[in-house]
């Protein structure tokens, strides 16, 4: 292992025997032996190679079942790889599957000390850190209640708090951001950033692409047990969006593209101010879309439209040539190009997808509609505000 390497994952393959996932019993073993049937296996990871440098923070993204948690468990040492090996340097603290391994019947206090003992922290040292742990978790007097009475938020907060305050060399965090309130998420991110800037190694799984992009030095994309891409956080989040869209449009075309197909939207692309194609929103936050279409026959008075949506909140904004007062007298074979320029400075930080449509002026005929054809990401809103879009506000306060 190189001196600067914290975690080295070499040719790691993991297969789970499927029978072992259900209830195991002697009966099954005997029956399987008689039938001479090889147990079915599920291949969770295939030849994964990855090196994490000391002081680096690595994000792992991928869809559900891609093998992210298995990979993290293998790094933590709680799962042994079928092939290959993992080596890690230093003390590892992990927050796998949303918990630090608490026993429900023990109080928070007892669990904290037990976890410290497991991590090899002397009791005296744990006593010194105890107040910080409880403070960060923010669970107050509940610390002396059995953890089975905790809300899921309290459970995760205490787990994260212990895992971090243990002061490990390597911290593994599996989707801690998905739970807990906004305030806790913010403190989590802050703490992880501090951890990262103190030269420690962080490996993080999250579906919150914005958060993972902001906290990672590198991101690995995992897909069906293989690492398909590793690189800078911005590029990888873009690439991941691209993959998801490709999967969405390739997998179920009926759901994402429909219409009479008398005219087709063949391509939509985003460009920057100079007209060069871009994959992400340019710095001036102007969405410049060029939309290529083909027409199989002459169509009078068509309307080109677009919609901007977030996965959580649905359509945020939509418009079309008709609303914008741009008359399109007709389209005819072979086709042409339409361009939109949309000022997106008002949008909140987050992930957005764009859909496009080509329909008749009376909205009765849908020639072609492309769902989620483009995506972009805003890492930080132009100004602070609540909600999805910043509307212009003037306010005046008068005293009587």
């Amino acid at each position, binding site marked *: 292992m190189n001196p600067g390497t914290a975690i080295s994952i070499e040719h790691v393959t993991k297969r*789970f*025997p499927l029978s*072992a996932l259900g*209830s*195991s*019993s*002697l*009966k099954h*073993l005997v029956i399987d032996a008689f039938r001479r049937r090889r147990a079915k296996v599920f291949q969770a990871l295939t030849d994964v190679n990855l090196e994490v440098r000391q002081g680096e923070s690595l994000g792992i993204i991928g869809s559900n079942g891609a093998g992210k948690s298995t990979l993290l*468990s293998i790094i*933590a*040492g*709680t*799962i*042994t*790889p079928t092939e290959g*090996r*993992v*080596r*890690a*340097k*230093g*003390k*590892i603290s*992990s927050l*796998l*599957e949303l*918990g*630090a*391994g*608490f*026993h429900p*019947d*023990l109080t928070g206090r*007892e669990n904290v*000390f*037990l*976890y410290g*003992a*497991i*991590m*090899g*922290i*002397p*009791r005296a040292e744990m006593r010194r850190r105890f107040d910080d742990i409880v403070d960060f978790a923010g669970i107050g007097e509940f610390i002396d209640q059995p953890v089975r009475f905790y809300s899921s938020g309290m459970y995760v907060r205490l787990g994260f708090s212990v895992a971090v305050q243990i002061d490990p060399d390597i911290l593994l965090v599996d989707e801690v951001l998905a739970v807990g309130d906004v305030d806790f998420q913010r403190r989590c991110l802050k703490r992880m950033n501090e951890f990262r800037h103190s030269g420690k190694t962080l490996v993080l799984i999250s579906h919150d692409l914005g958060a993972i992009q902001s906290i990672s030095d590198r991101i690995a994309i995992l897909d069906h047990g293989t690492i398909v891409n590793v690189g800078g956080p911005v590029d990888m989040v873009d690439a991941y969006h691209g993959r998801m869209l490709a999967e969405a449009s390739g997998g179920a075309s009926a759901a994402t593209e429909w219409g009479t197909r008398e005219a087709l939207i063949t391509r939509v692309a985003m460009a920057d101010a100079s007209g060069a194609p871009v994959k992400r929103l340019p710095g001036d936050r102007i969405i410049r879309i060029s939309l290529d279409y083909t027409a199989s026959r002459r169509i009078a008075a068509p309307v080109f439209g677009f919609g901007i949506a977030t996965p959580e909140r649905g359509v945020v904004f939509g418009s079309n040539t008709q609303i914008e007062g741009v008359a399109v007298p007709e389209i005819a074979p072979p086709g042409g190009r339409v361009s939109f320029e949309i000022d997106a400075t008002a949008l909140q930080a987050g992930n957005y997808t764009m859909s496009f449509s080509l329909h008749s002026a009376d909205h009765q005929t849908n020639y072609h509609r492309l769902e989620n054809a483009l995506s972009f990401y805003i890492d930080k809103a132009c100004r602070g505000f609540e909600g999805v879009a910043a509307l212009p506000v003037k306010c005046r306060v008068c005293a009587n």
Partner: protein
Amino acid sequence: MHSETTTNRAGGGFLAARRELIESLVGRNLKIRYKGSALGFFWSLLTPLCFILIYAVFARLLKFGGLTPDYLQYLVCGIIVWQFTVGCLNDSLHSISGNANLVKKVFFPRVILPLSTALANLVNYMLTFAVLMLYLLASGHARLGCGWLLVPAFAMHFALCLGLCCLCGTSNVFFRDTEHIVGVVSQAWFFTTPVMYPVSFQLDFLPADIGWLAYVNPMTGILALYRKAVLGHAIEAGGCPPAAAVAVSALVCAVVLAAGRQALRAGDARFGDVL
């Protein structure tokens, strides 16, 4: 695969830190056992006293006394020693599978789990054994001339129990049938062990020169040692030298311990998959 990193993971003071972990887990086992019960820890003293009382009544009613003059003491000694073995057996079943939340989430040497189960039972056993000694002294039946034999007796007994904890704990992760099998087997084991009757009952069935065969059951040797140590009963082994017979039991204890260690090693790599 973690051979290189195991020592690194704990950082400095490996042994000291592991000692604290074992202490914590033993404490946790004991705490959970008595959690919510009003008398709590006193049960470990109360239970053996109740046993002594129950057997005293029944031994008198059934007129079992003819076997040896101190039959009641012989019986109570056997029962209390046996309780440690069977307590370990029962608790060990869930020593690993019952800690799935720990095993799945944190890496640490897994042997600590069955070890802490055995140690928690040992703490309990020490208390009940103290009660037993007080009773023997009070009833005037204590014969402590060979008291030093308690050392090998405890050593063999603990080795056997630790080995069984590893075996049953590991086995129950992969085959949940272990629980039921252990229940039946431990009952059969109880009656094939001279807890309620003297070893001579078994020796009657064996030719004198292979009397050591009775001591293949390690509990026979362990009980014989305890009874020699605290009651002064001779170790009977037919025509065989008593030391040789006890050595057979000791060997079996060592084999069980080694088998437990081996089973735990073999299972370790797959605990995370199954739990």
